[in-house]
């Protein structure tokens, strides 16, 4: 039965080796490993080759010249080290090895051990607790920079600080950052700044270096000064991967000095913009408010109608009422007057003078009637009298006188003398003739 994998292919050595290499290198790009150095050799190339072993296994290692430069100790056979490495497979030999980037001695007595011990101690003391961390001022009035008076760190800080906040007040407190006096100088500087009390923040900075170079920053003295500083401390020590005790105790750790400056100082321009923006917003809000109120007020003012229209309406109503009142009164008076005139006319016509005159005519007619009747009476009487008188006239006894007879009457008693004896001489008698009469005296009766 042929030795084949499942796709039926048979590996070549090179291919298998290549696949194993890529598997290993992908699986372990970096790793921390600890072990004992053995077979340490450094050929002319300057690279060092050695084995790392423990009780169970052994593994080939290499550290190239470049990485070796940064080592702060000299590895020797039998030395226990801890280091960071990546795994690599060398195809021509089919062997794998660790390529160390960094290594340091492992075990008691070493710097690392001292570091770890101090770190543990301070951590146990609670110095790293976030509770102890002071907040950095948003905008420090004055920044004290404790660092070397020369070198890149102070330059970077000044550069970044003046870029970010041109008006910043920087105080450089130059110290030695490595060497024997560094520890004391740094501590003194921190305490001095605290005593001056003029700064709002302290930047404790140093450029990168070996663990030995950074030693001062890993001392308890410095840590204590930082811990006891009333002014917030920000550290910017070494490069990004370097952690020192100072970093842990500090209120804030920046990976680099530049970064520390950047973190301490805000961007002045951005801040000014922010303030101006807020100021604008404030003004806008206020203006908007006033405009709104003005609009509302003018709207209300517009709606606040003067009651003049109401007054006019009322005036019309009153005038109408007044006119109607006058009209009604006039109508009433003139109607009453008309009625009165009509009644007076009717009254006057009911007793006309013509009626009186009619009555008068009736009366005068009646008077005429009685006048006529009266006249008739008198006329009738007169007529009858006239007739009787005429008839009497014809019977007048004197009529015989016309034929020559006469009548003698005694004068005085008028007795007709028919017997001469009845008269005596000298008696006066009258003799009635046909025409006239004679009064005579009797001469003698015969």
């Amino acid at each position, binding site marked *: 039965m042929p030795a084949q994998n499942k796709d039926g292919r048979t590996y070549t050595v090179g291919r298998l080796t290549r696949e194993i290499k890529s598997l290993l290198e992908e699986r372990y790009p970096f790793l921390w490993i600890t072990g004992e150095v053995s077979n340490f050799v450094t050929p002319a190339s300057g690279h060092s080759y050695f084995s790392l072993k423990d009780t169970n296994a052994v593994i080939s290692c290499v550290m190239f010249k470049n990485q070796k430069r940064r080592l702060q100790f000299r590895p020797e056979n039998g030395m226990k080290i801890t280091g960071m490495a990546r795994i690599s497979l060398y195809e021509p030999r089919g062997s794998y090895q660790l390529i160390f980037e960094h290594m340091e001695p492992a075990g008691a007595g070493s710097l690392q051990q001292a570091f770890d011990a101090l770190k543990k101690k301070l951590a146990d003391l609670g110095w790293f607790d976030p509770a102890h961390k002071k907040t950095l001022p948003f905008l420090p009035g004055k920044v004290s920079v404790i660092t070397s008076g020369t070198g890149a760190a102070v330059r970077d800080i000044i550069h970044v600080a003046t870029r970010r906040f041109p008006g910043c007040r920087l105080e450089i407190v130059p110290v030695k950052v490595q060497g024997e006096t560094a520890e004391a100088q740094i501590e003194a500087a921190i305490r001095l700044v605290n005593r001056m009390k003029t700064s709002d923040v302290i930047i404790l900075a140093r450029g990168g270096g070996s663990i030995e170079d950074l030693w001062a920053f890993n001392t308890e003295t410095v840590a204590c000064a930082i811990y006891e500083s009333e002014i917030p401390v920000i550290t910017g020590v070494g490069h990004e991967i370097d952690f020192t005790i100072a970093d842990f105790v500090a209120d804030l750790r920046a990976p680099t000095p530049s970064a520390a400056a950047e973190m301490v100082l805000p961007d002045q321009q951005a801040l000014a913009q922010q303030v101006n923006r807020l100021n604008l917003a404030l003004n806008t809000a206020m203006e908007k408010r006033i405009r709104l109120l003005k609009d509302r007020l003018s709207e209300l003012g517009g709606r606040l109608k003067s009651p003049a229209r109401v007054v006019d309406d009322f005036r019309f109503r009153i005038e109408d009422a007044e006119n109607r009142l006058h009209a009604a009164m006039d109508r009433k008076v003139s109607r009453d007057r008309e009625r009165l005139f009509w009644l007076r006319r009717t009254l006057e016509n009911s007793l006309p003078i013509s009626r009186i005159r009619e009555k008068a005519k009736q009366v005068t007619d009646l008077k*005429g009637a009685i006048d006529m009747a009266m006249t008739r009476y*008198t006329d009738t*009487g*007169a007529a009858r*009298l006239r007739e009787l008188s005429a008839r*009497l006239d014809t019977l007048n006894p004197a009529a015989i006188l016309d034929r020559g007879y006469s009548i003698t009457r005694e004068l005085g008693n008028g007795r*007709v003398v028919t017997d001469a004896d009845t008269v005596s001489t000298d008696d006066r008698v009258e003799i009635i003739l046909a025409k006239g009469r004679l009064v005579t005296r009797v001469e003698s009766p015969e």
Partner: protein
Amino acid sequence: MAKKTFESALAQLEDIVREMESGELTLEQAVKKYETGIAQTKFCLDILDKTEKKITQLSRTSTGEPKETLFEAETPPE
């Protein structure tokens, strides 16, 4: 006859005229009758005169002034 009236006088006058016309009277009687008749006539005439005067006077006073035109109202005064 209590009182002599126009009518009674006139009636007497008539009687006288009738008697005289009968012709049975003596002259003396006749003269007497005639004289009476004349007297009655006069009496009657007097009454008539007085009556007329009274009437005139009455119709005058009835209007308060001579009212000649009373019965001629249709005649305008001009």
